[in-house]
């Protein structure tokens, strides 16, 4: 347990989510990654729930600025509209007191709670199986808040309702953003013909996708096709740690071994069946997601259900935006993504993420992912300036 606690404390730091996280794990005894004055209250929370791990952090910038603003704008509940929130988080409650009773009230219902007391921000999440669960929730909360903050700003720009406080927060958050990567890494050159080559290429491309900030580590997926087999990252795997987490899935209906494969296997399968691509890379680059949610048609009858009902033929330059939910349901992206990606380098799924394809290897797919995200980032600020 000690090892796991240290591992996820380290991951929170390396992912830029927190500088000094507090992480605990509980089997029959509780283990913390470090001492802290917050621990007595957090142990009361731990004692009041049937869980085995807890994370409490002050978020690193720009998330700190973002949460300070969002908790003032949404004093009770933050409800981002992106896919991660809709599917997993539902919403993020906000409280004012760092007190076990109020934390428990909300954490018993939701996967996370934001404590905004004075100028302090604490994000608290938990797991019932592993600290990994608490890490994934925390990462998702930060991603969703980022998307909401920048999406709100653009929408408010369009409506002319930006407040001074919002502008100050925006300027500060923007100043804290990492500059965009302008060069791509040199990845293994394909086409690949052996399993060993594919595994190495997938592991390498996955790691760079996380390193470049194009996906939070437990989201996204990646695959490569050789002949009648799709090699794809497993469901819930971390793209920066794919060793042992890649499933070979035969396309000839001979095995169900791919049951642990990514929930987007069906979409990958359809893309491979209908195009001559060999590689697919799916990340959640933030500005692609934010821009996919930016729409000036405020009177649209599908407003509020854009993620499943948007019928507009929307593009960001050459990149289509399609609706679709995770997985294989009737409104799943497996129905919208594969037809849209034909003859395209990438497609953005509304409020969710970006899929890119390549015919040879991940160099091209990665390049598309980065270029499209950078293009979306530039377009975002261009639109903000135009308002």
């Amino acid at each position: 347990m000690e090892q796991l606690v240290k591992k996820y404390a380290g991951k929170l730091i390396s992912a830029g989510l927190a500088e000094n996280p507090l992480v605990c794990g509980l089997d029959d005894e509780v283990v913390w990654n470090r001492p802290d004055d917050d621990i007595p209250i957090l142990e009361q929370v731990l004692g009041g729930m049937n869980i085995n791990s807890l994370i409490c952090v002050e978020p690193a910038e720009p998330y700190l600025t973002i949460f300070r603003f969002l908790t003032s704008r949404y004093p009770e509940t933050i409800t981002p509209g992106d896919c991660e929130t809709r599917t997993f988080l539902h919403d993020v409650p906000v409280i004012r007191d760092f007190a076990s009773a109020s934390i428990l009230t909300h954490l018993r219902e939701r996967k996370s709670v934001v404590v905004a007391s004075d100028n302090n921000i604490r994000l608290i999440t938990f797991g019932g199986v592993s600290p990994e669960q608490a890490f994934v929730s925390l990462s998702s909360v930060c991603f969703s808040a980022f998307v909401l903050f920048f999406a709100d700003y653009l929408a408010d720009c369009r409506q002319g309702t930006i407040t001074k406080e919002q502008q100050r927060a925006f300027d500060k958050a923007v100043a804290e953003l990492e500059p965009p990567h302008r060069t791509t890494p040199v990845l293994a050159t394909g086409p690949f013909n052996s399993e060993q080559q594919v595994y190495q290429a997938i592991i390498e491309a996955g790691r760079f996708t996380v390193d470049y900030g194009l996906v939070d580590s437990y989201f996204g997926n990646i695959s490569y096709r050789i002949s009648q087999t799709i090699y794809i990252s497993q469901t819930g795997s971390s793209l920066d740690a794919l060793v042992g987490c890649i499933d070979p899935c035969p396309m000839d209906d001979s095995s169900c071994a791919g049951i642990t494969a990514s929930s987007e296997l069906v979409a990958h399968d359809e893309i491979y069946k209908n195009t001559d691509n060999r590689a697919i890379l799916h990340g959640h680059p933030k500005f692609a997601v934010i821009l996919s949610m930016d729409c000036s048609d405020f009177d649209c009858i599908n407003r509020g259900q854009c993620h499943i009902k948007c019928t507009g033929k929307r593009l960001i330059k050459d990149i289509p935006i399609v609706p679709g939910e995770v997985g294989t349901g009737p409104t799943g992206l497996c129905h919208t993504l594969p037809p849209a990606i034909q003859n395209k380098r990438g497609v953005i799924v509304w409020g969710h993420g970006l899929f890119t394809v390549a015919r040879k290897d991940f160099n091209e797919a990665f390049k598309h992912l980065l270029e499209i995200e950078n293009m979306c980032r530039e377009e975002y600020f261009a639109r903000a300036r135009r308002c």
Partner: protein
Amino acid sequence: MLTSPNGWTGKILHIDLDTASIDALRPETEVYHKYIGGKGLAGYYLRPKVTLSWNHPRMPLLIFTGPLVGTAAPTSGRSTIMSRSPLTGTIADTSVGGRIGFQLKRAGWDGIVITGQSETPCGIEIDDDKVRIVDAGELWGKDTATVFSLLADGGRSVATIGPAAENGVCFAAVMVDKHHVAGRTGIGLCFAAKKLKYLSVQGSSKVRIHDRKKLYAAREEILRLTAASPILMGQHGFSCFGTGSIYDLMDSRRMMPTDNFRKTHFDRASELNAHAYKKRYDPGKHGCMGCHIRCKKIGRSAGYVGSSMPEFETMSHFTALIDNTDMDLVMQANTLCNHYGMDTISAAATLACYKEISGTKDLSGRLIPLLEEIGQGSTELGRQLGKGSFHYASSHNQQTASMSVKGLELPAYDPRGAYGMSLAYALATRGGCHLRAYPVSHEILRKPVATDRFTFSGKARIIKIAEDQNAIVDSLTACKFIFLGAGLEEYAGAFSAVTGVAATAQDLLKVGERIYYLERLMNSLNGFEAKDDDLPGRFFTEAGTSGNGIEVRPLDREAFLEARSRYYRIRGLDEDGRATKEKSKELGLAWNNS
């Protein structure tokens, strides 16, 4: 009496077969809130009589629905059948699908408590509040297929035993609506002990819902998470291939029990997987009431039209465990077990035990005749095997060949390949059961997140939390499989919307803890303790079949025992695994049987 009957009906049917009397029990609101329904409420009614022998006339036989049954909450058509096990002596509960819970609820009953013993074979027929105990003399001895053909009528639900129960098979099952099995722990024999051949139910009322809008919102969240689950709804998942879709995975992970758990890899597995069954038998989808996943598969090819396809456990144990490579033979064995009313896991595992002890090289030619001998009790060997593997092995002074815990044969996940599973098997209140904690979800299927399957670190608490969760799932009642996608957070929303009782996921987990602790308490009263919370010695001394870069070592006994001790502390048991007065009081459970 229940003050606000949303979700629940507030009435429990009590039938005494000694006196043929029928009356309605009306539990207080507090009882519903403390035990919810399903296995929780059934356990509440079992508790006062649990120290009686399984076939004592006053030992109750309990069939309970939950508050979500008959509502729009997904997968909530299930129910629980409970009593004391003739196979293990532990509490015996089994969650079953089909329509029985749905019809019972619509008939206006939250559950049935059956006491006494009929002098002659009987059936119970329920049409709303009209309840009849009828003569079933002509059906006694008939197989389940015959009973269904005679009694099944439209939406009416029928639960019946077959000849196996009547002939004293300790792992006899109850078959529900032809395709659904209340399989484990010999619950069918509890029916036979009361001379109860069948239960037939039809109802016409609708379940009252507190807040329909909130229920549909919770339903949407659950459906969205289900759709996002590759295991449930993916192209290789349960919806497409049934539970058999994990057959390949278990073998590739080197944890397919083979040759009575002497190996963990079956060379011929790739020829006998779910795809192979799909090609040969062209199965169609079928599901329990209220389920959109529809993981049950029904054959459509010539010779197998309408036959239930084997579930994963059956596929695995009737091939790898007994070294059989004939798929048709698996189909026949599955059909025969269903017709006789026998648990396929215990049946196959008992035959594997017999194969090892007898030194039989090839069982395939004897498989069907042996199952018939067991089901009919027609030979001494059949009658011996019908007592289960532990009894059979003990009678040959070779207990180590019975791969069971507390006498219940182990399912098709080798615990050397998933250490949480080893704890789950050892600690399960009904014996060697995979479903109490189902650690396969995180150790193999990566849900909600992946854990290291080759470590005991952290597993004691994980098992405890999962047991609490599954106890509440079986009480709501819903299907445990949907929790590979959705969570208790979403189901708490559904529960509150249906009943009007404000409850969070953590509140429900607390109720689950009470329900599960009550089971430990009942087992403690019957003398179960740490020595019973153990695995067959083979797992600690013999390695599994390594390969694919996976090394399958024997379990470290010391590490296992340390993890078990941690579990006892976390669960609030004494160091010998027995329930304590203090913890019982904390959970609001009566310590004295008054």
